[in-house]
Structures are given as C-alpha cells and as structure tokens.
C-alpha cells in the first residue's frame, strides 16, 4: 500500500515537473482548456441566477379560483380545506365576496357606484399557492391549474403569471442549449489534452521504448501520462473557475444597480461550491479519459513486430 502510494505520488510530482519544464506550451494548453470550460460554466452560472431571479416571482405565484355564484361561503370553506390537502398546494386563502367588495371599493375609486348596488355580485375566490417545485415547472403548473379548474364549484381558474410560465419554458430550452455547448466544448477539451499527450508521447518515445524493454507494463507507462492529462484538466478547471469569478465580479455591480432601479433586491451569485467542484472535477475527468484513450492508441506502436 505504502509502495503503491509513494509510486503514485512520485508520478504526480513527475507529471507536475513535466508541465513546468515546458511552461509556455503548458500555459497555452491549460488556457485553452480553461476558456473551453469557462464558457459553459459561466452560462450555467448565469442560468442559475436567472432561475433565482424568476423563483422570487414564483414564491408569489398563485392560482385564482373564481367559484360559481351559487357556492356559499360555508361550502367554499369546505372546498378550501379539501384543496389544502392537495399534494401540490402550499396554502389556500379564501376571499369572501364582502372582502373582495371592500378591496375593490378601496382600490378602484368606484366607491359610489358600487355603494348603489343592492346585492354583492362578486363570487367567493380561493387563492391557491402551489408548492415551489410545482411553480418552477411550467408543465406541472399547467396540469394543476387544469385540475383545479375542473372542480365543479370552480367557474374559472386563472394563473396570474403567464409570462413566468413562458420564461420557464424558455429557460428549459436555453438550459438544453447550454448542455449541448458544454458537450461540444468538453469534446474540445478532450481533443486538446489528447493532442498534448500525443506530443508528449512522441517526445518521450525513446524513454517509453526503454521502459518497455526492461519490463515496464503498459500500466506503468500509462500512469505518468494519465496524471499529466488529469493535471491539465484540473488546472484548466481551476483557471476556468477564476475566469468565471472575475467575469461575475465585473458585472455584479451594474446588475445590482440596474435591478435596484426596478425596485428589486437582486445580487449576482457566482458559482456555488458544488457546481464549482463539478466543473473542476469534470475537467480532471476529461483530462484523464483523454490521456487514457490517446495513450491506448499510441502505445500499440511499441508492440513486437509480426
């Protein structure tokens, strides 16, 4: 175990040494990797922020259920309690016709006209607040609105934030587009690392040949290249993280001042710990995989000739 560990540590240090021996090309390829990782990483961070922004609206997302005129307040209270039991509902509020009339009078400025009415024509209204995870999904929300609208006491169910629904749908699309970009750029990182590994193999051909002659296994030869690929991916990931943080801090102040002009308290969040970790580790993973594939292909030339 100790032997195994020291050997791996030696290889890691050796790989670091190899990178530092040709600093210019190392920095160049690590920068390319960083840019390729920073783009999808930054886009994901931006999406996270937009999601956070819209979710602040979603907290207030409510479905208004206008009940049929013949439904009494008592019946409406029973309905309120039964809807309250629904798994997707966080809270149901009841607005009696009288309350609604009062609010209407105070807000609309038609007080005198309304006073002349002999009876209250307004129905009972239930305000149903869906749970957050429902509010975030346009599809689930639509199903809930539809379901509540089908209740026989309900004459009309209405969702106030139609535009949120559309935005959520749009974000869904953008998220998928970002995944595609991430995949393509990930492939780019794979190829960039593969190319540096290929060059390293060419440069160290004689060394590989000698190691194989004195009984070094493929695994032994492979190890230093795997570390080198992993290290490049890891350093590229860390640099990408730095780029994202710099970009975000650059646009953070104008974003806050803009949103404050609209009366919204909104601040940009850079990538959180977990997504950051994910970014860096996927860089390392891509580097490792790329080195594994490249070395696998190029080691064949050192096999005995037929």
């Amino acid at each position, binding site marked *: 175990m100790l032997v195994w560990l020291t050997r791996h540590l030696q290889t890691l240090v050796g790989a670091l040494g190899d990178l530092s021996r040709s600093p210019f090309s190392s920095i160049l390829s690590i920068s390319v990797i960083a840019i390729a990782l920073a783009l999808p990483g930054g886009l994901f961070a931006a999406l996270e922020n937009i999601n956070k922004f819209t979710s602040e609206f979603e907290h207030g997302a409510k479905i208004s259920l206008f009940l049929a005129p013949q439904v009494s307040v008592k019946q409406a209270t029973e309905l309120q309690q039964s809807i309250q039991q629904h798994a997707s509902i966080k809270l149901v509020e009841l607005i009696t016709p009288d309350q609604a009339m009062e609010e209407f009078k105070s807000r609309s400025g038609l007080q005198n006209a309304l006073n002349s009415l002999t009876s209250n024509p307004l129905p009972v209204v239930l305000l149903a607040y869906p749970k957050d995870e429902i509010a975030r999904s346009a599809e689930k929300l639509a199903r809930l609105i539809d379901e509540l609208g089908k209740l026989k006491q309900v004459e009309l169910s209405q969702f106030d934030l139609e535009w949120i629904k559309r935005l959520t749908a749009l974000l869904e699309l953008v998220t998928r587009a970002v995944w595609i970009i991430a995949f393509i750029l990930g492939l780019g990182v794979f190829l960039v690392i593969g190319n540096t590994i290929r060059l390293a193999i060419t440069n160290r051909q004689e060394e590989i040949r000698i190691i194989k*002659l004195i*009984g070094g296994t493929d695994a032994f030869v492979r190890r230093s290249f795997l570390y080198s690929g992993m290290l490049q991916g890891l350093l590229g990931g860390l640099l990408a993280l730095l780029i994202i943080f710099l970009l975000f801090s650059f646009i953070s102040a104008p974003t806050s001042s803009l949103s404050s002009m609209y009366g919204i308290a909104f601040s940009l969040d850079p990538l959180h710990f977990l997504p950051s970790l994910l970014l860096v580790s996927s860089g390392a993973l891509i580097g490792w995989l790329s080195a594994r594939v490249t070395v696998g292909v190029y080691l064949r030339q050192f096999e005995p*000739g037929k």
Partner: protein
Amino acid sequence: MLETSLRLCSIKKTKMLIEFSNVSKRYPEGHEALRDISFVIEKGEMVFLAGHSGAGKSTLLRLVTLIEHATRGQVIVNGQNLGRLKRRKIPYFRRQIGMVFQDHKLLHNLSVFDNVALPLIVSGFHPRDLRRRVHAALDKVGLLNRDRAKPITLSGGEQQRVGIARAVVNRPSLLVADEPTGNLDAGLSDEIFDLFHDFNYHGVTVLVATHDLRHIERLGKRSLTLSDGRMVLQANTAA
C-alpha cells in the same frame, strides 16, 4: 524405456534456456533477416553470436527478447513459447532477461543511480531494498562512486557499464547483449567481456552478439555464426 525417455525429456526441459526450431524472420518490407535457424542454448552457458554486420545477429536477439515475433518456426525461452505469449505477459517475460545494447539506451535526464534502479522501479520493487540492490550492481561494474552523475558526463565505456549494471540489477537468468563493445577500444572491450564472463561464472546464461572474433577465441566459449540470415557454423572452442 518409456521411463528413461520421460526422464530425459524433463532433464532436457529444465536444462534448456533458449531453443530455436526452424525459425525464419521476414520483415514487413520484405527483407529476409533469418532463414531456418535451429539451435539450443542451455542454462548456465555463455554463447557468442558471430557474423558480419547484417548477418542477422541483431534480429536473432530481437526474437529472443520478443522485440520481434518470428515469422515461421518456434522460439522457446525459459520454457515459454514466445509465439503464444500473451501481449500483457510480455513485460513479465522481459523482467527475466537483462539486455545490453550497443548504444547503451540510457535515459539521459536521469542520474546513473536512477537509470540502474529503473528495472526495479518498473517491477514494483520495494524502495527499502532498492538502494542496496542498485549499489551492489554499480559496485559490480566499478561505478559506485559515480551514482549521482548524469550518463552524458561519463565516457563510452562507463556508460556501457551503467547499461550492464541496469541489465543485471534485476538478477535475470539470461543476459543478452548486442554488440556491447561496438564503439569501444580493445582495452575497454576486454573489461566488458570479462564482466560478462564473470556473470556467467556466477550462473547467468549469457548470449552476446559480436563481430569481434578476438573475444571468442580469448574466452573460449561456444559460438554460433550467422551469414546472410543462415546458421553457418556452431563451434565449441571451449572443448
């Protein structure tokens, strides 16, 4: 009768280290380097491989060390049929053989010590015993005081001795050398061949390719002579 032949068979098996049976080697570009070669080298023997350059000496050694596969015929080394050896077993096979090359094949970015330690490192030798083994090997070739030097700072003869130390550090049962003194003057050549002779005296089977007939006569060992890829002479000057 049957019993005796079985016993003979098993003795034969344990005594043989290298056996070539009707071996031919044709390179992909069409050059026929070896034609119908058959011979046996027993454990503990020291055998010279003679012949002018281009006669096929190197190719023969490349077949023994499995750098190349034979095109036809059968090569058995240390009881293993090399034609049937699986790809991933090749490194473990090579660890039983010490190889010495004309151009030394040292790694110039490593120190003398690290060069000699390399076979032990690749075979996962415990670091605790590594230093002792490397120093023993360097001591044997008389370079113990140069262990920190870079190979490039050593003379040709010294570099070749580092190569020999690397070949024997793993205590292989077979030592194979391809023109080990090709670039050395007579005095240094003698030293190198005396080293091989000494290893052979201590039980290592040695197979050396050389075009220098002087050593063959001087040390009085068996020699196989190749010409144009054919075995033309199997002489035993030791007798």
